[in-house]
């Protein structure tokens, strides 16, 4: 028997897969894929759309290219077409796909031609594929077309074949993640025929296109690449489909990135290889001391390369170190890299290369078991050398300063004077050499860069020659062996100076790294310690400003709905309050909705003044973090660091979400408990009067004639009183439901205290006409913010309580007055007062009822506890005490001024 159990797909997995697909409600992407323009992609797409239309799908033509052939245009008939958006750019009217209109219209299926198209400036997204992604996120199915040369990873291969560089590319993940790929294929001969008859481009463009691109050979090659790409996809899909094998993790590629433009070739090569093996890959950039001398152009190129790698799906790592080979080797060993890809395009004939073995040799030496792939750079020679030259010049310029020059000369002079002293004392020449070497070392230590160390080495040799070798005060040296001395001295000076500089750089880099790690550690610690969301937000903003020196903003909910402004101005930034503007908020909103970074320096909504990054936790966006770019865009390194911080913030926010959830649940369960207690109390309390009513009414009905008038009247009065009691009870219950809907929150409006008192008293008067109530209010009108009907209920309850506990002929006093910032309401009676055992849980929830005998109580416990909830919801206080000369006082206060936190 063979055991298949472990190979069978887990039904739960499949279900989860299905449900996750349904849950995020993403649209399906179908790509019509061809190897060149004119193979009939658009035609096929429209044909398909017509089919869909016939089967009742809501189809919309989002955008079709203008140079479409007439046969294709015919296929458009009957399909609803979205009018293009006209954009004015440098006095030219450009027609673009109208994304917002499409999102608003929200069809089931939309057709968007030319996936690789680059949008005109001023449109929200830089590339059309980003538009398509938004459509998919909105749950709209998309049909689109793309040619093989537009695939990012194949870009350079196609360029090699056709000698035409294609600027418009789409990232491979779009292609790989598409739900359906349809290869549209015709024979190259057929295609060429179509060409010659001018079906593809308009006549005047055909000539040129034919010459460059559409040769039979090119087309055949392109066709092969396209077919292979699709075949690859199928085989990949086959492997992944049955949920059987875990991802092949035994191969892991690493590509080394430099500022050289040829790096892009390495990146693409690695991507293709990784794709072929279905292996993960990492792009690494080593920051050395040289990085400081890079020109803006080179920095840009590094940024571009890293961005490219990221787009193609690589994991990005930036390392620091002096020696590139050691750093890479270390990293490769630690992270289990099996293959390393490096580009080779450096100039051979430099002094450095004479002494240093090349990177690949070093790597091979250090990593015996790792395969190394070398990709030759095919850069035109002159441009490479231009790169090199400029770096040297600018590198030196950067660190020339008068201060350092002065230090150098000063130290050399001191050394010379000291040596002069040694010389006059007739101590050997060798000591003088040592003095000079010492001075060179000191100079390299206290100056910046190589320049002064080298200058000092040369100068010290010259001064030594001039002052201390026979003949004195000339640059001649007669004694044999001096040239060797000079040479060795120069070498020693050079090497020590180089070493010192290197150590210094190391120290600086180490300190920088240390600093970042420290900050991360600190953030982590503080985030863990912070308990409330506001504190966390403040903390994050503080650190962002501290680390990046930029103004920062953090949204913890959808920015459009966010009312709080969690924004911190950095002292080194110009005024950054623009972060709060509506436009910026809209960008942040987009980020929130699309779970993608956007804003300045990214590909989406580039016009924004800040860079926004979503904080995503298990596919839910918890917040958006924004950094002002008023002082220039963020570099790759900053972005990476921002991402690391974002992941810390994510953990913190997640924690808050969870704890909020838990708190909500606790409150909920408490409320539930209260409700069931209440229910129990009520049903008991209701039974008593209902029994009375039922008894009295049935007595009258059945024996009405036999009873004397007085008894009859007494019974009816009884019914009336019991019903009135029931009504008051129900009013109380209604009040409870009104505060329970929103936990502990009421809508307050200013009400005149006397009006509320008067209304409450008139109610009581109706029910207990014989009782006397004296009401006192201040002479000045007392306006108190409250929910009128609820406070009226409180007063009614207190009055009823007083009536119940005091003799019939006594007077009940009600008073309202102002005391500082509070309004005080008092209800006092001359009754029995409150007994000691009642005191502790006078206002308690309904539980204490059980302690008393079942018949003695008539829901007063409910009345007082309701008073307490109402007053609590008003941020007020309620208490009771016994008067000295008998009777009880119930007193509650309401704040006159609305406090800041309303809840």
């Amino acid at each position: 028997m063979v055991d298949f159990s472990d190979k069978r797909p887990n039904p739960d997995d499949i279900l989860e897969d299905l449900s996750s697909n349904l849950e995020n409600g993403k649209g399906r992407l179908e790509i019509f894929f061809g190897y060149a323009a004119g193979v009939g992609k658009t035609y096929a797409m429209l044909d398909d759309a017509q089919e869909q239309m016939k089967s009742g799908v809501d189809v919309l033509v989002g955008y079709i290219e203008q140079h479409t052939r007439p046969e294709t245009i015919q296929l458009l008939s009957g399909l609803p077409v979205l009018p293009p958006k006209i954009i004015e750019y440098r006095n030219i009217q450009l027609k673009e796909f109208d994304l917002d209109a499409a999102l608003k219209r929200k069809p089931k299926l939309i057709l968007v031609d030319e996936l690789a198209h680059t949008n005109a400036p001023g449109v929200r997204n830089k590339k059309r594929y980003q538009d398509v992604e938004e459509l998919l996120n909105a749950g709209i199915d998309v049909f689109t077309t793309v040619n093989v040369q537009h695939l990012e990873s194949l870009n350079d291969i196609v360029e090699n074949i056709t000698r035409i560089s294609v600027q418009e590319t789409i990232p491979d993940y779009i292609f790989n993640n598409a739900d359906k790929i349809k290869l549209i294929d015709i024979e190259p001969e057929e295609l060429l025929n179509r060409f010659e008859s001018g079906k593809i481009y308009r006549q005047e463009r055909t000539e040129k296109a034919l010459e460059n691109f559409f040769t039979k050979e090119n087309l055949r090659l392109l066709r092969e690449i396209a077919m292979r790409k699709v075949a690859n996809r199928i085989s990949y899909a086959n492997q992944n489909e049955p949920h059987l094998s875990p991802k092949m993790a035994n191969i892991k590629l690493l590509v080394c990135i430099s500022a050289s433009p040829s790096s892009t070739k390495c990146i693409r090569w690695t991507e293709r290889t990784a794709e072929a093996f279905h292996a993960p890959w990492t792009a690494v950039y080593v920051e050395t001391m040289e990085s400081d001398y890079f020109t803006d152009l080179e920095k840009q190129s590094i940024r571009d390369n890293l961005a490219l790698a990221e787009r193609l799906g690589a994991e990005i790592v930036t390392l620091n170190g002096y020696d590139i080979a050691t750093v890479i080797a270390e990293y490769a060993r630690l992270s289990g890299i099996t293959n390393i890809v490096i580009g080779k395009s450096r100039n051979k004939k430099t002094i450095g290369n004479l002494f240093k073995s090349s990177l690949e040799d070093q790597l091979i030496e250090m990593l015996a078991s790792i395969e190394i792939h070398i990709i030759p750079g095919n850069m035109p020679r002159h441009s490479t050398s231009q790169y090199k030259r400029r770096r040297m010049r600018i590198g030196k310029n950067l660190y020339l300063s008068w201060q350092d020059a002065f230090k150098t000369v000063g130290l050399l002079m001191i050394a010379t004077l000291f040596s002069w002293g040694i010389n006059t004392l007739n101590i050997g020449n060798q000591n003088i050499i040592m003095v000079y070497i010492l001075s060179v070392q000191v100079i390299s230590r206290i100056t910046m860069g190589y320049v002064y160390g080298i200058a000092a080495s040369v100068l010290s040799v010259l001064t030594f020659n001039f002052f201390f070798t026979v003949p004195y005060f000339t640059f001649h040296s007669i004694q044999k062996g001096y040239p060797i001395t000079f040479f060795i001295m120069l070498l020693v000076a050079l090497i020590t100076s180089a070493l010192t500089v290197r150590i210094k750089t190391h120290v600086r880099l180490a300190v920088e790294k240390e600093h970042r790690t420290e900050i991360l550690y600190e953030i982590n610690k503080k985030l863990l310690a912070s308990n409330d969301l506001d504190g966390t937000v403040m903390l994050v903003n503080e650190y962002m400003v501290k680390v990046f020196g930029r103004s920062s903003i953090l949204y913890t909910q959808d920015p459009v709905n966010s009312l709080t402004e969690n924004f911190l101005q950095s002292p080194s930034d110009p005024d950054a309050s623009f972060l709060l503007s509506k436009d910026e908020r809209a960008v942040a909103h987009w980020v929130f909705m699309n779970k993608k970074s956007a804003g300045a320096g990214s590909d989406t909504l580039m016009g924004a003044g800040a860079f926004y990054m979503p904080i995503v936790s298990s596919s839910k966006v918890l917040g958006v973090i924004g950094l002002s770019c008023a002082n220039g865009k963020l570099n790759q390194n900053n972005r990476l660091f921002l991402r690391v911080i974002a992941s810390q913030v994510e953990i913190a926010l997640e924690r808050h979400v969870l704890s909020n959830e838990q708190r909500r649940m606790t409150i909920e369960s408490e409320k539930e408990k209260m409700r069931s207690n209440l229910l129990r109390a009520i049903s008991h309390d209701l039974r008593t009067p209902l029994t009375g009513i039922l008894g009295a009414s049935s007595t009258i009905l059945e024996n009405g004639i036999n009873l004397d008038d007085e008894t009859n009247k007494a019974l009816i009065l009884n019914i009336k009183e019991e019903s009135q009691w029931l009504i008051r009870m129900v009013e109380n219950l209604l009040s409870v439901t009104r505060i329970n809907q929103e936990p502990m929150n009421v809508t307050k409006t200013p009400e005149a205290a006397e009006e509320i008192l008067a209304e409450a008293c008139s109610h009581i008067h109706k029910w207990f006409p014989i009782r006397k109530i004296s009401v006192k209010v201040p002479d000045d009108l007392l306006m108190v913010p409250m929910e009128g009907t609820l406070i009226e209920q409180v007063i009614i309850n207190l009055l009823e309580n007083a009536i119940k506990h005091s003799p019939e002929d006594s007077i009940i006093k009600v008073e309202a007055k102002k005391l500082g910032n509070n309004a005080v309401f008092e209800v006092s009676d001359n009754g029995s007062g409150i007994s000691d055992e009642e005191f502790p849980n006078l206002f308690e929830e309904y539980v204490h009822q059980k302690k008393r005998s079942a018949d003695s109580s008539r829901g007063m416990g409910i009345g007082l506890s309701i008073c307490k909830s109402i007053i609590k919801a008003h941020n007020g206080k309620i208490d009771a005490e016994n008067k000295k000369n008998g009777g009880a006082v119930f007193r509650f206060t309401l704040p006159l001024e609305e406090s800041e936190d309303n809840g």
Partner: protein
Amino acid sequence: MDNKSVILIVEDEEGIANFISAILKANDYKVIKTAKGKEAISMTASYSPDLILLDLGLPDMDGVDVLKTIREWSTIPIVVVSARGYEREKVEALDLGADDYITKPFGTSELLARIRTGIRHSKKYPNENSGDISKTSVGELEIDYNKRLVSISQKAIHLTPIEYKIIVLLSKHIGKVLTHDFIIKEVWGPYTNEIQTLRVNMANIRRKLEENPAEPKYIVTQVGVGYRMVEELEQ
């Protein structure tokens, strides 16, 4: 033909409708009943009752819509029946042209008083503004419109122009609840929000008219709705 007043009861709870009609019949009114909003409208058109008692919660349509429809062509007094806690609903109904409201649960005397007031007003209404009424008096309070004089027990009371305007407004609709918005619009004009000012003025008036402002006799407050000048003093 007898000249009994006809009351239309629009109420879907049979128990309540029965008890109301019993009271009304006992007090010499003629009663017609319906439980449906649509029927209420057609019955109003065909019977032209003297007063409509309208419950706002009806099974077939919103009571407020019934009110609106009837008000399009008729000024028959309408008293709205609504529960406590639905103050906004009452204000809406009053602003839409209801003459008065009564809060469930209510007693018989209260109901009869409202109906009396309603019918009396409809009879007075046509010539209300023509100026033939020169005086209104309730208990000790007397308002002389010609002399622009308000007095209590023959003692003149000094009022500011705004206060006088408010008193006149309330007295002209004596017995009826006037909503805050209505008073503000009549006294200060449209597009103003003077609710605080109104309250301060009311407090001042009360201090001038009433013995104890916390136990007003003449002008009573309906919390969350508005003010009413009583027609007859409570004993």
